[in-house]
C-alpha cells in the first residue's frame, strides 16, 4: 500500500491546492499545538494494525518477533535523533506522561536524601503540576523566574542548587514563545553539581539539533504529535551511564526496563520512530525554509502595522514560532476576525481561566499586552502562499479592530492609558 504524499497532503494539510496558488482554507498555523501525522509516517504504521499485529512482548513466535523487531527499529530511530543509545529510550503515551515519570520518578526514588527540585515558571502545565504534586509529597520546589526574553539566568540557577537538589527540570523549547533554553550550559552546570538534568523536549525534537551527551542531559521527554508523528505516543530518554535511578509510576509486566509497564502500541511506536527518522533527515533544510517563512511573516506584519511586539527572544528561538502582541486589539477578538487562520491567543478569553498567559506574564509582558497576543505556528506543510494570505488578513483585521478600539483612539490622541483609573472587574 502506498500513499501519494502530494495528493494526501494537498487535500488535507498543505495550504496549496494542485494547479493554482490559492491557499487551501482554513489555513493551519498552530503547529505548536499539534502537527498532522506525516503521510509517510502513516504509511509505515498501517501494517502494524492489521497483518503485523503481534504482541511485541511475545517471545516465542513469529508474530511477536516481527512486532518486537519493529519496536526496536523505532527505538533506534528515536535514540538517533537525540544522540542516545537505544537502550536508554522508553516508550510512553506522550510527553505529559514522560514528564510525570521523570519528575515524580526521580524525586520519589531520591527524596530521603535529596528532596529538592528546581524548575522554571514558564514550564508546561504538566511539569508545573507534577512539581506541585511533589510538594504535597513533602518535596521542596524552586520555581526559577525567566528574563524578559524568556530564558533562564544561569547564575540564578547555580545559586538555587543545594546539596538537597535531586533534579533540575528545564524545558528545551517553550510551547508559547518558542525560545530555546541554553541546554548545554544548564547540562554542564548540573553535571558539575552532581544533580540530574531533565528537559521537556516536546517542542524541540526535530526542530533543533539535540545531543544528550554533548548537552549532559540525563532525562528527556519526547512527544509524537509535535513532530508529525501520531498522538498518544511519546518517549522518555533515561541515561544509563551514569545511571539515572527512578521509580516507575505504572506497574505491571516489567516492560520498558520496568519503568513503564504495559503492552507497547506497536503502530504508534513505529510512527514515532519514522517521524524521528524523517525529522532528523530533513531538519537542516526544513529549519531554513521555516525561518524564511517566519521572517517573511514578521516583516510583512511589522511593515504594515505599528505597535506590534514580538514576545520572547527572536534569536534563540525555533524557526516555526512567532508570538506577537498587537497592541490595542484583544486576541480573541482578533481571532474571530481571521476565521480562516487557525492560531492561538494568550488572551484569557480563549481559556477557561480569567488570567492571560502565565508565560507572557513571566516575561514581564503587561497584562494589557498579554491580552493582545497571537501565536503563529508554522510547520512542514505551511507554504509561502499561506503566509502571504495570513499577512494580508491579519493586517486587515488588526486595522479594522483598531478603528473599533477605544484604547487605540486614546493612544492616537496622546492619552496615556495607564493614567486612567480603570475599574478592574
Amino acid at each position, binding site marked *: 500500500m502506498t500513499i501519494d504524499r502530494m495528493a494526501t497532503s494537498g487535500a488535507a494539510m498543505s495550504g496549496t491546492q494542485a494547479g493554482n496558488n490559492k491557499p487551501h482554507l482554513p489555513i493551519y498555523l498552530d503547529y505548536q499545538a499539534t502537527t498532522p501525522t506525516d503521510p509517510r509516517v502513516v504509511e509505515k504504521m498501517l501494517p502494524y494494525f492489521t497483518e503485523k499485529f503481534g504482541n511485541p512482548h511475545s517471545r516465542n513466535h513469529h508474530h511477536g518477533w516481527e512486532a518486537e523487531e519493529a519496536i526496536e527499529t523505532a527505538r533506534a530511530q528515536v535514540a538517533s535523533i537525540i544522540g542516545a543509545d537505544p537502550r536508554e529510550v522508553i516508550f510512553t503515551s506522550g510527553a505529559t506522561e514522560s514528564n510525570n515519570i521523570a519528575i515524580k520518578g526521580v524525586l520519589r526514588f531520591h527524596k530521603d536524601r535529596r528532596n529538592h527540585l528546581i524548575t522554571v515558571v514558564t514550564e508546561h502545565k504538566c511539569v508545573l503540576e507534577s512539581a506541585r504534586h511533589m510538594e504535597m509529597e513533602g518535596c521542596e520546589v524552586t520555581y526559577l523566574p525567566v528574563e524578559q526574553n524568556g530564558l533562564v539566568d544561569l547564575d540564578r540557577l547555580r545559586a538555587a542548587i543545594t546539596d538537597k537538589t535531586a533534579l533540575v527540570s528545564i524545558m528545551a523549547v517553550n510551547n508559547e514563545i518558542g525560545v530555546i533554553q541554553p541546554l548545554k550550559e544548564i547540562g554542564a552546570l548540573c553535571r558539575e553539581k552532581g544533580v540530574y538534568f531533565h528537559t521537556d523536549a516536546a517542542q524541540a525534537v526535530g526542530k533543533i539539533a539535540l545531543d544528550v551527551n554533548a548537552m549532559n542531559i540525563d532525562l528527556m521527554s519526547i512527544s509524537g504529535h509535535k513532530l508529525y508523528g501520531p498522538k498518544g505516543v511519546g518517549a522518555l530518554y533515561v541515561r544509563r551511564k551514569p545511571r539515572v535511578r527512578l521509580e516507575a509510576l505504572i506497574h505491571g509486566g516489567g516492560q520498558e526496563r520496568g519503568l513503564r509497564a504495559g503492552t507497547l502500541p506497536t503502530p504508534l511506536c513505529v510512527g514515532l520512530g519514522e517521524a524521528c527518522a524523517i525529522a532528523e533527515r530533513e531538519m537542516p533544510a526544513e529549519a531554513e525554509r521555516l525561518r524564511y517563512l517566519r521572517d517573511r511573516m514578521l516583516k510583512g506584519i511589522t511593515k504594515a502595522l505599528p505597535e506590534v511586539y514580538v514576545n520572547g527572544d527572536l534569536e534563540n528561538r525555533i524557526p516555526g514560532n512567532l508570538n506577537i502582541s498587537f497592541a*490595542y*486589539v*484583544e*486576541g*480573541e*477578538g482578533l481571532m*474571530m*476576525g481571521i476565521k480562516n487562520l487557525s492560531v492561538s491567543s494568550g*488572551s*484569557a*478569553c480563549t481559556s*477557561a481561566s*480569567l488570567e*492571560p498567559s502565565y508565560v507572557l506574564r513571566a516575561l514581564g509582558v*503587561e*497584562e*494589557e499586552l498579554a*491580552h493582545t497576543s497571537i501565536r503563529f505556528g508554522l510547520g512542514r506543510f505551511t507554504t509561502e502562499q499561506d503566509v502571504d494570505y495570513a499577512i494580508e488578513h491579519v493586517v486587515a483585521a488588526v486595522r479594522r479592530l483598531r*478603528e*473599533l*478600539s*477605544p*484604547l*487605540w*483612539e486614546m493612544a492616537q490622541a496622546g492619552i496615556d*492609558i495607564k493614567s*486612567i483609573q*480603570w*475599574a*478592574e*472587574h
Partner: protein
Amino acid sequence: MAYSKELLEHYDNPRNVGTLDKEDKAVGTGLVGAPACGDVMKLQIKVGVDGRIEDAKFKTFGCGSAIASSSLATEWIKGKSIDDAEQIKNTEIAQHLSLPPVKIHCSVLAEDAIKAAIRDYREKNGRTAGSAQTADAAE
C-alpha cells in the same frame, strides 16, 4: 465554540462605531472595563431636547462577544428615552446574541456602559435632565 448568527453579524458589521464630542453638553460618555482584564467599552449617547437618545456611538476593545454586545446596545438605545434605555438588562443582550456562559460578563459590561453614559449625561445636565420623572419619584 460556535457563536450565534446574530453575534457574528454584529461582529462583522458593527453598528454605530465612532465617537461623539464628549465636551458637548448633550453627550454622555461611559467608559467601562479595564485593559488589564481584556475588555474596555466606550459608549456615548447624544440626548435630544425631548429626552430621547438621538444618536449613540461605541468603540470596544475586547473579544467578539464584547464587540457584538456593545454594538447591539447602541442599536437598542437609539430612539429610546433615557429612562427606557436605562431599563435594558444584560440578560436581554445575552439572550439576543446567545452568549455562552463564559461570555455573560460581556453583556454585563454593555449594560454598565449604557448606565455609565446616562450617569455622565445627567451629571452634566442635572439629575433629572431628560427624565420624565423627578429624581425623588425615580427609585
